[in-house]
């Protein structure tokens, strides 16, 4: 395996959790709900995933538990912001802190229990393609899942009637409601999807990337996923670009350091953020017209009866 292949492989594994969490949050935000609790749902997924995987001995059960844990936390959030129409920013921040704390309690018995990670799946024939095969088709299941998710979400939002209705709820909830759509139910489902994705991203951390549990192990990746949604201007394909740009620069700076490139490590550590901001500015300059945020993003909707 060449060094370039090795770097690309690492970039993909570093970017995948960001992409999975971002794509879930993107759907929730397109439905008009801003859920800042991604970090909390993600780490709950990481904790539940490894806890169940260790207890049952099954990685698949762990992944399922992670998705359910993310969804459960999202359901709590939905109860607050949809059921009680509370402030989404405040509830989201509370959710992030709550998830971090609860995951520490849940994971406490599993601190320091080592476990083999989920292995890679080689796609027959395709993985033999020189270079591309090794990078694209010798990956763990989560990487494939992340691409399936992006394709699925892009198709759903852009090409289906249900996707159109979901976007309508995010743009103008009152209008969608007037047309007879159940805005709150649709937003609830979108939130559940976002929570499930965040949980899945957490499972990737605790079951594949660093297969063990320590509290706080997401180390802020949930916040980055939120930023990627904005970077992507709420479009699924751009989320891929955002996640891979961020993951790519993160890994490249580590390689540059290892190769002895004489740049201060503090500047290197800031590089992924700087480049992301720079790219965002350039995208914004190139685009004509205003922001592409869903018009109803963050606004509570209370249906009149």
């Amino acid at each position, binding site marked *: 395996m060449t*060094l370039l292949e*090795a*770097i690309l492989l*690492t970039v993909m594994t*570093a970017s995948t*959790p960001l992409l999975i969490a971002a794509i879930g949050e993107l759907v929730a935000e397109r439905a008009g709900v801003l859920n800042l609790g991604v970090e909390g749902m993600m780490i709950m997924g990481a904790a539940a995933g490894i806890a169940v995987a260790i207890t049952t001995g099954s990685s698949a059960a762990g992944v399922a538990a992670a998705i359910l844990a993310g969804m459960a936390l999202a359901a709590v959030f939905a109860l607050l912001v949809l059921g009680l129409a509370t402030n989404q920013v405040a509830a989201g921040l509370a959710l992030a802190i709550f998830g971090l704390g609860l995951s*520490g309690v849940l*994971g*406490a018995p599993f*601190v*320091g229990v*080592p476990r083999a*990670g989920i292995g890679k799946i080689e796609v027959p024939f395709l993985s033999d393609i020189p270079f591309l095969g090794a990078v694209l088709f010798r990956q763990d299941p989560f990487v494939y899942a992340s691409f399936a998710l992006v394709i699925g979400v892009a198709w759903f939002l852009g090409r289906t009637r249900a996707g159109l209705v979901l976007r309508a709820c995010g743009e103008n909830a009152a209008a969608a409601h007037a047309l007879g759509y159940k805005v709150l139910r649709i937003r609830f489902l979108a939130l559940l999807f976002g929570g499930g994705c965040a949980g899945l991203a957490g499972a990737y*951390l605790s079951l594949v*990337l*660093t*297969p*063990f*549990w*320590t*509290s*706080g*192990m997401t*180390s802020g*990746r949930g916040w980055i996923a939120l930023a990627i949604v904005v970077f992507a201007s709420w479009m699924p394909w751009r989320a891929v670009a955002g996640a891979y740009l961020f993951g790519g620069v*993160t*890994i490249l700076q*580590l*390689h540059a*350091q*290892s*190769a*002895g490139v*004489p740049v*201060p*490590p*503090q500047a*290197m*550590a800031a590089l992924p953020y700087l480049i992301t901001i720079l790219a965002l500015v350039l995208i914004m300059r190139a685009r004509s017209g205003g922001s592409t945020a869903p018009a109803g993003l963050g606004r509570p909707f209370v249906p009149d009866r």
Partner: protein
Amino acid sequence: MTITRRHIGLGAAGLAGAAALPGTAEAQAPLNVGFILIGPVGDFGWSTMHDVGRRRMLEVLGNRVTATQVESVAPPDFDRVANQLARTGSRLIFTTSFSYFQPTVRVAPTLPNVMFENATGTSTLPNLSIYNARFYEGRYIQGVIAARKSRSKTIGYIASFPIPEVIHAINTVMRGAWSVDPQMRIRVVWVSAWFNPAREADAARALIDQGCDVVCQHTDSPAPLQLANERGVFGFGQASDMTRFAPRAHLTSSVNNWGDYYAERARAMLEGTWRPGDVWGGLNSGMFRLAPFTNMTPEETAEAERIRDAISSGRLHPFDGPIVRQDGTEVIPAGQRLTDDQIRAQNYFYRGIDVAMP
């Protein structure tokens, strides 16, 4: 009566006031000891071992002490947490990271009735002690073992921040390695975090992909060691015995033990004999030890044990001269030895390390 925060505050203030009166408090109120941790208790490394130390202190001193611990405190939040601990009655506060040293120096004079102890700081105050272990002694042994184990002659070093503690650790790994083979080289990646498992693992991937086959880490999670195991290279555990994370890769870990020190200092508070101090305990102090050597041949183990014992008894010193900086200027000639202050102030790499100083 309803208990409100105000009442609790009054009660705590009363307790603190009573405790501040010499001679009256000892019989009734137990000493409350505060702990501020940089990472989560469950990091299985640095912060875990401070928590183990706290529990050891409680075990030794029984009901004469209580403890309040706040984990994962980011340096910007330090002042608030320290003040909160002081307000709620902590009279001795351990601030367990070098990242807290400057904040502790800033806060300590404003709370003259509270005694502070900072792990790995570099100066004292009338109410501030510093304590640390000579982890570099273990690093020297890591260097020796790494040189025996490496076939590519390249050590990968995952470093947190470019502070003297980390810099002199890199220097001692190289000294140890050169004592076996002067061809040994090192690559360094700074991850700008003490605890970020996935990034630590990514750094290990980068180093291994570039040919390093022994990984040293100066970060707190077992992720790099676990990755070394997955990739079939060797590594060392940090702060606690990490053998189980890497049964095929683990060589040794440096295992911290703060409990006896914590108990001793809390006892000094109880007896009124606490004085600001500067403790830097080596292998012979029990402040840290090396976990059993694994994945090594009997000869390699024997050599490592011999060097460990020589350092422990003072026959071998990792900072004997001559010491020459990367840029060629001499620090000390042959026959001299760096003083503790010189070790602590180390902000240069040795000649031969071809990594740029950040």
